[in-house]
C-alpha cells in the first residue's frame, strides 16, 4: 500500500484579513496586491469591505474565500465603522491573526482606530511582509529607502500592518467569487458622527498614474505654472501619464491627484521621467521602484541623479521643447 502523504506548505499564520477598498465599484489595485501577498502567508485569506457584492468576484479571484461586508457606511467615513467591526470580531474570537491595510486615506483611518481598540501597535510604511517563524514581520524602508528595517510584534494581539501601494504584484489565484457575509458594526457613539454630504470626482483624461507604462513628472524647476504644459505635451507625445512633485501641487499649479511620493501616489512604470525635480526622499519613495528613470535637472548635484539611469544636466526650458518636437516628428 502506498502511504498517503499530505504535502502541506508551511504557512506563517492561520488567517489574514485584508481591508479591500473600491471606488465606484472598482476594486483598488492595492487591495488585490495585498490579497495576493496574504495568500502566500496564511492558510485562509478573507476580505473586509464596505462594498461586499461589488468586490466578491475580484477578491475571490485573488484568493479570498469570504468578504465580510461592513454595512451602514454609505454617507460615512470608513475608519470608525470598519475598525469597530474588525475589533468586535477579534474580541468575539472570530477574528484573524493579522490584518493587512493599504496606506490609503481610509486605510490609515481604519488602522489608527483599530490600533486603539485593540490597544496594539501598527507597523506602518510596510513594503514587504515576511515570515518571522510563526509570526509576521514588516519591512519598512528608512533614510529615503537606503536602509530596510524589519519589525515584528511582541504582543499576543493580531498583527496590524499598513502596507504601501505597489509593494507586491497582484496575481489571480483562479478562486471562485468570495462568499459575502455580514460583519456587524458595534455602536460607534460620537466617533461615527462625521457625515459625507457630497463626493467630487476630478476629471481625468489619458492614462492614469496608477497604470501608465510611462510617467512624466514636473517639479519646481519648471519655474512657473504655465510651463507645466511642457510636461503635458511630452506626456501626450509618449502616451504617458503626467505627474508632479509636491512643491508644485502645494503651489496650486496642478491638482493633488498628480502628486507622486510619500503623501501622493506610488508609481512603478516602465519609464519615469523627472523634469525639474530635485529628488527629495519623500518624492523618491513614490517613484524609485520604476523600471527605468530619466532625469532632467540643471543641478549636477541634484539627488534625483542618484537614482537615474539616464541623467541630463540641463535646463528644462531648453531640453523639453526639443524633446517634444523630436518625439512629435517620429
Amino acid at each position, binding site marked *: 500500500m502506498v502511504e498517503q502523504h499530505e504535502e502541506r506548505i508551511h504557512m506563517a499564520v492561520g488567517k489574514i484579513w485584508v481591508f479591500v477598498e473600491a471606488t465606484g465599484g472598482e476594486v483598488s489595485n492595492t487591495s488585490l496586491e495585498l490579497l495576493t501577498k496574504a495568500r502566500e502567508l496564511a492558510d485562509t485569506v478573507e476580505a473586509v469591505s464596505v462594498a461586499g457584492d461589488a468586490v466578491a468576484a475580484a477578491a475571490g479571484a485573488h484568493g479570498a474565500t469570504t468578504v465580510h461586508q461592513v454595512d451602514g457606511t454609505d454617507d460615512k467615513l470608513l475608519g470608525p465603522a470598519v475598525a469597530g467591526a474588525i475589533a468586535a470580531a477579534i474580541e468575539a474570537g472570530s477574528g484573524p491573526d493579522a490584518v493587512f491595510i493599504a496606506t490609503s486615506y481610509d486605510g490609515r483611518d481604519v488602522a489608527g482606530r483599530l490600533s486603539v481598540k485593540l490597544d496594539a501597535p501598527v507597523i506602518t510604511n510596510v513594503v514587504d511582509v515576511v515570515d518571522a517563524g510563526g509570526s509576521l514581520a514588516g519591512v519598512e524602508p528608512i533614510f529615503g529607502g537606503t536602509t530596510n528595517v524589519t519589525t515584528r510584534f511582541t504582543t499576543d494581539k493580531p498583527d496590524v500592518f499598513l502596507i504601501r501601494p505597489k509593494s507586491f504584484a497582484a496575481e489571480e489565484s483562479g478562486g471562485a467569487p468570495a462568499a459575502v457575509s455580514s460583519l456587524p458594526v458595534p455602536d460607534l457613539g460620537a466617533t461615527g458622527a462625521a457625515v459625507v*454630504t457630497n463626493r467630487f470626482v476630478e476629471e481625468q483624461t489619458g492614462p492614469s498614474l496608477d497604470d501608465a507604462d510611462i510617467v512624466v513628472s514636473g517639479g519646481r524647476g519648471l519655474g512657473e505654472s504655465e510651463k507645466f504644459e511642457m510636461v503635458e505635451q511630452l506626456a501626450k507625445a509618449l502616451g504617458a501619464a503626467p505627474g508632479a512633485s509636491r512643491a508644485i501641487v502645494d503651489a496650486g499649479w496642478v491638482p493633488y491627484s498628480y502628486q507622486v511620493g510619500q503623501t501622493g501616489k506610488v508609481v512603478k512604470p516602465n519609464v519615469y521621467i523627472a523634469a525639474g525635480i530635485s529628488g527629495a526622499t519623500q518624492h523618491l519613495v513614490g517613484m524609485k521602484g520604476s523600471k527605468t528613470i530619466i532625469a532632467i535637472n540643471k543641478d549636477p548635484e541634484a539627488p534625483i541623479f542618484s*537614482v537615474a539611469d539616464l541623467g541630463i544636466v540641463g535646463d528644462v526650458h531648453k531640453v523639453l521643447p526639443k524633446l517634444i518636437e523630436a518625439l512629435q516628428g517620429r
Partner: protein
Amino acid sequence: MNVVVCVKQIPDPADPGALDPETKTLVRSGKLILDESDSYGVEMALQLVDAAGGGEVTLVSMAPNDEQSGLRTALAMGAAKAVLVSDEALRGSDALTTAKVLAAAIGRTGQPDLVLTATESSDGYTGTVPEQIAELLSLPSVTFAKSIAVDGGTASVQRQTEAGYDDVQVPLPAVVSVTAGVVEPRYPSFKGIMAAKSKPLDQVTVADLGMDAGQVGWSGAGQEIVDVSEAEAREAGTIVEDDGEGHQKVVEFLAELKVI
C-alpha cells in the same frame, strides 16, 4: 472657540539623524525645530479662532528632551500657550504611545472644540496618530482636510480622496488632520517672536499625566526590530551634460527601451 494644535518638534531635516548600532533606533538628539507640516495646523487654528471672534489656540507637544524651540516658533505665530510633555522615558515611543500621551495632554488643556494635527509627521510619518488621538478621546474625526470652515457647532471639511475630495460635516468637538495647502502659514513677526518668550509653557512629565513610565518609550512599544539591512541600491546610470543635443540622448534611450 478653543483649538488645540498638536505640533511635533523634529530634528532639522537639513541634519538627519543616525541609527544607534546598539538599540537600532533612530537617534534624535539636540535641537528640534517645528515640523513644517504642523505650521499649517497652527495657521488654520489661528484663522478659525479669529473668524469665531474669540477663544485661543493651545499647542500640545511631546518630546523626550526638554526642547522648546519648535513650540516657541508656533507661539510666535500667535498661539496663546503650550503644553509640553517631556520625559526621557518617552524615547522610542511608537505612534500609539505618542497618541496616548498627546490625548492625556489635550485633557489638561480643558475642553477644546477642535483638535488639529498634520496628516503625518516629517520624521515619523506613520500617519496614524491623528486617528488614534480621536479614538482615545472618543471623538469623530476627519483626516486629510484641504479646507475647514466652522459654523456654530459644526465643521465643514473638504477631505482629499483617491478620486477628488469629499465634503464632510462633523459635529464639534472633533479631531481634524490638515494637509499642506489648507492655508498659507504666516511667518512669525519680530513682535511675535518677542512675545513668544513670555507666553505660558506648561512642561509636564509622564507621571504628571498619570501615566506609568513603563508603559511608554521602548518598553511600551509592543514591537521589536529583528533586522536592519542595506536596501538594494540602484545601479549608477549615465549622466550627461546638455550641449544642446541632450534631448537626442533621451530619444535614443527611449528607442533602446522600445517605448517609442
